[in-house]
């Protein structure tokens, strides 16, 4: 039998270091043009490096080939369906890359005098205004670098807010469905994380919430909520929840990872949230880059505003009537201070602002609508046939932009874990959904199709699931040893953690 694996599937991967040969290089540098003085004249010998660090020595053609070949070992959104729940893998318009690359953006130094960076500051201000409108909150800071950074910011704001009133609170509540970053941020911000249970409708269990508050209302600093939550369900009790928290004196934090469900339809500010983070790399089409960059701007209510990080982008009416002037406001005495260097991930802002301009008020609302339609349609498709039996939806109601299935019956009846299903999906050319999250659903599969998928994609995905289940009824081993078509298969993750090899020995 002749192998039909492609040469790329077959090849043992080599690192760029393994392709290195002494003396090769891609870079030619400009001549120094200035006197070639010995380095020791410039830097004390004991502060000089004896041997340059080991970097690969490879000419340009092989660098290009190396990374091009590596790239083909990735699955990506521009190639196929990527329904990774909670991640909003929506289309990444190339227009956004084009405008981000304009030299006026890409080669603008962050310390440029604001007077000579008016375009950049205006863009940031416009983005702030837009996000504020979308979130229904009056003030925005663009500084946080991602969602988790926004969470930390929100908790530091909460601390400052309470401190300003002479309070010091210790507990932050979050539902058991919350994302891992929520409790991690809580700890990092010096609070104690308190878990709140989920009710049978998939929302916050109100009794438990009340109990957790009542334990010691004065210690409740904040409730962090994702709404729709990670089950893809809108919490029907949100108004009451907000009232309870506010009554206790806490702030209400909105984890905006799921904002894509409600843009132009419902606003966290109107729901009573004080602080919202927005993941520009989710709802606002910043490409995910294999794990970043992103940005996690926060929108806040009036009472939180004084504490926003500095600098803050502001618009001032110029004295001489020549139109507004944009500036960086550093003079914010109550500010929690900086969360990072300079002004944030500006390149991400450009992309997301281009996206907002492209879609506009109408397009954003339509995007959320279609996201919800696509999710409910795929849910309906997966309620049919084998999937309906083996992979029931965790909470059986209309979902928003995503939904969670449970692989529990599949595991019991076919011996197939959710992981096996995920791995077999790879052979069908799909990125699997998020698996084993949220934690309260056994063998969870969290599916977020996003609005940019066609009905045909959704149908094809549903059919693939159906075929995998049919296959498994015949022979569960097929999925249990999957995948078969990828360059590597079922890697030993335990080994990688027990005896970590995290760099190449050279």
């Amino acid at each position, binding site marked *: 039998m002749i192998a039909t694996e492609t040469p790329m599937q077959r090849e043992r991967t080599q690192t760029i270091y393994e392709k290195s040969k002494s003396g090769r290089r891609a870079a030619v540098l400009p001549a120094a043009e200035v006197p070639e003085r010995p380095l020791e004249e410039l830097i004390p010998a004991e502060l000089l490096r004896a041997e340059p660090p080991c970097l690969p020595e490879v000419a340009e053609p092989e660098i290009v080939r190396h990374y091009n070949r590596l790239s083909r070992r990735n699955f990506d959104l521009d190639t196929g369906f990527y329904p990774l729940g909670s991640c909003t893998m929506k289309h990444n318009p190339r227009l956004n890359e084009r405008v981000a690359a304009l030299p006026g953006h890409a080669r603008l130094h962050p310390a440029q005098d604001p007077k000579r960076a008016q375009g950049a500051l205006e863009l940031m201000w416009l983005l702030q205004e837009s996000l504020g409108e979308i979130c229904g909150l009056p003030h925005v800071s663009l500084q946080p670098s991602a969602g988790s950074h926004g969470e930390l910011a929100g908790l530091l704001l909460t601390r400052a807010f309470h401190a300003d009133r002479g309070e010091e609170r210790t507990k932050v509540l979050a539902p058991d469905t919350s994302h891992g970053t929520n409790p991690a941020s809580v700890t990092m911000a010096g609070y104690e994380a308190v878990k709140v249970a989920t009710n049978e409708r998939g929302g916050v269990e109100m009794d438990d919430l009340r109990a957790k508050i009542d334990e010691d209302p004065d210690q409740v600093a904040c409730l962090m909520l994702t709404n729709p939550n990670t089950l893809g369900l809108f919490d029907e009790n949100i108004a009451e929840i907000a009232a309870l928290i506010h009554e206790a004196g806490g702030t209400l934090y909105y984890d905006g990872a799921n904002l894509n469900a409600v843009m132009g339809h419902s606003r966290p500010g109107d729901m009573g949230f004080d602080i919202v983070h927005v993941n520009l790399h989710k709802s606002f089409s910043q490409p995910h880059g*294999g794990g970043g960059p992103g940005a996690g701007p926060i929108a806040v209510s009036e009472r939180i505003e004084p504490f926003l990080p500095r600098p803050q982008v502001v618009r001032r009416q110029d004295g001489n009537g020549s139109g507004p002037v944009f500036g960086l406001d550093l003079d914010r005495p109550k500010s929690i201070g900086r969360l990072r260097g300079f002004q944030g991930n500006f390149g991400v802002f450009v992309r997301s602002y281009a996206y907002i301009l492209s879609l506009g008020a109408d397009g954003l609302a339509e995007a959320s609508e279609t996201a919800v339609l696509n999710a409910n349609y795929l849910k309906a498709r997966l309620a049919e046939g084998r999937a309906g039996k083996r992979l029931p939806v965790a909470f059986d109601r209309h979902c928003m932009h995503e939904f969670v299935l449970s692989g529990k019956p599949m595991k019991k009846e076919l011996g197939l874990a959710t992981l096996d299903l995920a791995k077999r999906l790879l052979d069908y050319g799909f990125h699997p959904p998020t698996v084993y999250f949220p934690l309260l659903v056994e063998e969870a599969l969290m599916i977020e199709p996003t609005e940019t998928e066609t009905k045909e994609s959704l149908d094809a995905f549903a059919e693939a699931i159906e075929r995998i289940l049919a296959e498994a009824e015949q022979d569960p081993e097929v999925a249990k040893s999957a995948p078969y078509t990828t360059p590597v298969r079922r890697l030993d993750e335990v080994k990688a953690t027990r005896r970590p090899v995290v760099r190449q020995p050279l």
Partner: protein
Amino acid sequence: MTRYTSATPGDRDEMLAAIGVDSVDDLFAQVPEPLRLGKPLALPLGMSEAEVFERLSALAARNADAEEQVCFVGAGMYDHYVPAIVDAITQRSEFLTPYTPYQPEISQGGLQVMFEFQTAMSELTALPISNAGLYEGPSSVASAGYLAMAATGRKRFVVSRGLHPHSRETLETYAVGYGAEVVEVGLRDAETDAEALAAAVDGETAAVFLQSPNFLGAVERVEALGAAAKEHGALLVVATDPMTLGVLKPPGEQGADIALGEGQPLGNRLDFGGPSFGFFCATEEQIRRMPGRIAGETDDVDGRRGFVLALQTREQHIRREKATHNICTAQALNALAAMVHLAWLGRGGYRELGELLLRRTAYARERLAAVEGVELLHGAPVAREFAVRLDAPVDRVLERCAERGIAAGYPLGRDYTEYEDGLLVAITERRTKAQIDDLAEALGAAVAAEAGEFGITEMQKSPVPGEASR
């Protein structure tokens, strides 16, 4: 339908029928009526691609970027030339559009890049462990603080005033959260005051934070300064500029427990400050306390080599409130850019670039010091950035230079009240000798003009380049 969505009216009808509802509104019924917006957002309607392009081009045109002004501004981010292959590779859909490599079988490209990047950063810093990158420089400093607290059980940080002001401020912001105290140690002739440092470090100190080259450009004697930390069992955290490590002794060879910094100079454009990445390297001891993603080498069921996210048990998605850090989405694409840039430079090119910066910086420093009305702010050794004092208001001088198409440097007065007359000048390989000469000329003319205007008395200048000092 927008241009990015595909549901035709026909599709919608079929889909609604399959769901069993009459309209999409029915799906939104779970949003309580009073919370439904019920009106359009107060934003403009969508625009065509060409219009968006024109709009953003018009905004971009109102910025004076490094193409328009010759850029001597540094202060942590530098106008290096980003090789064309960096863009070509990072813009490949296969790198640009996937997310974190949770499914290693179909993410070997990204995972291997992380592994290569970790290797390269480990080499640069001479520390054995590197993560795959954090957000950016200053927040990486704050992350080191969090690690140091966990490692030592202590809550006190001693920080050099030579650390980037944004790093110091960010560390303080975080410290308020995780409940640590930050003590600052001043500079002496631009170098961290060794005595004051030794005095500040005590048995409660979790970490000592240095930066070398520091914010004023001075190459610090890290090893000597770090002795105080060693003595008291505090971690030594060293922020550094990754473009200088081809020539400067790396933190790992000077006793650093953690080396970190702003990664922008490696393959990342200025982008008005981001996105870039923070690198974060440490000793073996800290491996299970590291923040951020780490790729590890392993085998698959067939014995084939592959890579996975290693040590995930540190991370928030596994450990939640017990995680070593809250970071999730990081800066993978920016780390890829750095890796490609480093591979492009190669061992030889990286070293040469470091030398080039050193020599051109030395030239620029001497050239400027010889200018009437300009003198060196300090005489400490420098690698690629140095500070001068001006005999005229810095803002006005900068304005005059700007009008001549030169961004002459970073005004130190923004962050250091003690250096209101200070200007920080940065050099990259893009700054030619001719441009440096122009800068000298422009600064001289500007200072003279301002001095003339404001009647500032001329000061006696040392006429010999290189001998200028305070």
